[in-house]
């Protein structure tokens, strides 16, 4: 099987356009985005997205490519970030000549050092043991952050100033847009590096060890050291993400190290799809957008997100990317178009059901938690959707929407299934 990749590349000539085009498109996309969304808040969201992408890609080197589930990966990102903030402090106070753009590499090296130390004992086994050790180390470092105040700054964390370094080509990074392009360049560099790491023999072996460690050992490779290399590389890139975080937000606290952050990167990566390189990228973009948009319109967005995550694990363990790539075969067969109408028909009752359910939850939440006497609620904070959450009518309406939507979905499901099977068969009907 290993001979397939090179021969395929050879057939396509010296430049492999199928490989190159997505990257070029991504670079153009990154360059153009701030011209379309120029507001400061949009730039903040995009920076946040880029950092999450780097972190989730690093995380997927463990989970997706190496089969190691970590509950404490925020440690490496956090430590890298803390180190960068301290470097910024040295630049400011002792006039060290470190230009801001190369700070993330130091964050990466710091993350790498810790990964080298911790990986020595944690990568001995994969699976549950690795998960437990990572959880223990994560909790340990998070708890230490309140003890070792000199490095972690205790409760209030440590903060720095990115504009104090020597200027690079006249940029001092006081503007958000400069930080955006800096983050974007680092995103491209690290994503490329991680992609090519997955193509190296070590990266391929990580897949082998994930799928069958025993066989890999029989072929003569130490499963433990293959895991160790992946772990170190992942720690390095997580540290880079930490450095980018430090440059963007100029402050790191205990929150950057704890289980919540470690858990959310697992959520992002799994939602996106752990089996594909682009999975974490999709996950990070969708998650950040959902988080930003949903938190504007509802107070219980974390409940929706938690539900979405559990449903993803149960029904779509390959994530959003898996859902997209499921359509590769219909596309090859040229039958993607036949799915549009069934999807559109399914969308109507599905949307009715989901909106009804969400409305029901929102009303229940308001009825239970609003202050005494404040009985008028605005659904999703829209002015024109005002009603009394204690009256029966909205409840009846939402339940009716749920029932009708569910009934519609049930009725349409066999048709959708038939259309899907038909789109996946080569014979023309």
């Amino acid at each position, binding site marked *: 099987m290993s001979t397939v990749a090179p021969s395929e590349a050879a057939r396509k000539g010296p430049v492999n356009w199928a490989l190159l085009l997505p990257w070029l498109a991504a670079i153009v996309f990154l360059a153009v985005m701030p011209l379309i969304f120029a507001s400061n808040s949009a730039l903040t969201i995009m920076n946040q997205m880029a950092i999450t992408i780097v972190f989730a890609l690093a995380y997927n080197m463990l989970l997706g490519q190496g089969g190691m589930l970590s509950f404490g990966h925020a440690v490496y990102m956090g430590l890298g970030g803390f180190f960068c903030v301290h470097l910024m402090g040295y630049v400011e106070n002792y006039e060290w000549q470190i230009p801001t753009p190369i700070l993330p590499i130091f964050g990466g090296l710091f993350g790498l050092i810790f990964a080298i130390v911790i990986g020595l004992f944690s990568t001995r086994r994969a699976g549950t043991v690795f998960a437990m*050790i990572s959880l*223990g180390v994560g909790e340990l470092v998070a708890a230490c952050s309140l003890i070792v105040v000199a490095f972690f700054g205790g409760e209030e964390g440590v903060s720095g100033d990115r504009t104090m370094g020597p200027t690079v080509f006249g940029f001092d990074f006081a503007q958000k847009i400069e930080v955006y392009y800096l983050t974007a360049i680092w995103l491209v560099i690290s994503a490329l590096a991680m992609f090519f790491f997955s193509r190296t023999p070590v990266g391929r072996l990580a897949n082998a060890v994930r799928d069958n460690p025993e066989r890999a050992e029989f072929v003569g490779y130490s499963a433990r050291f293959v895991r160790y290399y992946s772990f170190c590389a992942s720690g390095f890139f997580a540290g880079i993400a930490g450095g980018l975080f430090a440059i963007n937000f100029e402050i790191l606290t205990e929150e950057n190290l704890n289980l919540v952050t470690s858990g959310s990167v697992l959520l992002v990566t799994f939602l996106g799809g752990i089996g594909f390189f682009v999975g974490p990228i999709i996950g990070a973009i969708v998650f950040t957008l959902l988080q930003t948009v949903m938190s504007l319109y509802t107070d219980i967005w974390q409940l929706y997100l938690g539900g979405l995550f559990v449903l993803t694990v149960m029904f779509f363990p390959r994530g959003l990317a898996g859902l997209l790539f499921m359509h590769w075969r219909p596309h090859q067969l040229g039958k993607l178009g036949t799915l549009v109408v069934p999807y559109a028909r399914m969308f109507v009752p599905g949307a009715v059901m989901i909106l009804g359910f969400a409305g029901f939850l929102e009303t229940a939440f308001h009825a239970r938690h609003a202050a005494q006497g404040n009985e008028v609620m605005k659904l999703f904070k829209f002015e024109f959707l005002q009603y009394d959450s204690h009256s029966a009518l909205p409840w009846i309406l939402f339940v009716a929407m749920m029932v009708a939507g569910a009934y519609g979905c049930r009725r349409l499901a066999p048709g959708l299934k038939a259309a899907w099977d038909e789109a996946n068969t080569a014979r023309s009907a």
Partner: protein
Amino acid sequence: MSLILVNLIDGLVTGLLLFMLSSGLTLIFSMMGVLNFAHASFYMLGAYFGYQISTYVGFWPGLVIGPVLVGVIGALIERYGLRRVHQYGHVPELIFTFGLALLIEEVVQFFWGKGQIAFNVPESLKFALFTISGNAIPAYKVFMIFCSMGIFLVLLYILTRTRVGMVIQAALSYPNTVEALGHNVPMVFMGVFGVGTALAGIAGVIAGPTVGVFPGMAIQLGSIVFVTIVVGGLGSLWGALVASLLIGWITNFAAAYSFRFSTIFEWLGLERPANMAESLLRDAWTLTFPQIGPILPYLLMILILVLRPYGLFGKREV
């Protein structure tokens, strides 16, 4: 001396509470091979259910109905959630239980809000049972000890002396053989999962009045429970007991003695830095025992995993 006695009792209470969680967790692990990340969330659900029922009919019915409800929810989740994810492998199972823990926390916040809830010790147990040189020992603590010990003994009896227990033990090691003999093994699994979560629910109802009922209580205890069963050895009931008591005592004693680490440094002949604010080692000089108390269980776990991956009593490597 009396302080030691008081701490021994406090540590026993903490340890036995931990054990009610870790015993269920370790049983579920040896059965399905998956660590239930959401186990402490069932403990939290138990506390909230106990509180809600106690507002209607009082504490004692809550102590019975709450855990039963938690057990039913647990069994349903096993039947319709975990069993479905099982086919994808252990890592997705662990991720599923992790997602479940997140979801339960959000659901609890949905119903009861983010704040702490006033769940009080029942009136009938609101008195000091005895005093140890001035330190009053509340009756509720003694009740907690007897309650958890009683449950442990019942569990041990069922597992080792009854027919049901035999089937469970057999199903743990040879599920296929037991199934071939005509027992409904998936049903046994569901039952054990339900009972395990119900045990966590009892722990929640009992602990609620003393540790406080709030949405973070699952996370607060959850990782410690994992540490406990890893230290004790995955799948070992006795190991879970010993490790629970060990961790209960370690954390209580560390919190009670405000020993300063600077005394060690001074004894070693090291000089106290003149300018504390500038010294990089200032944290080491001001470090006290209560400060490092919370991280001791994690240190213990890492030590155990590095030195003895079987845990204290485990038969197989984790």
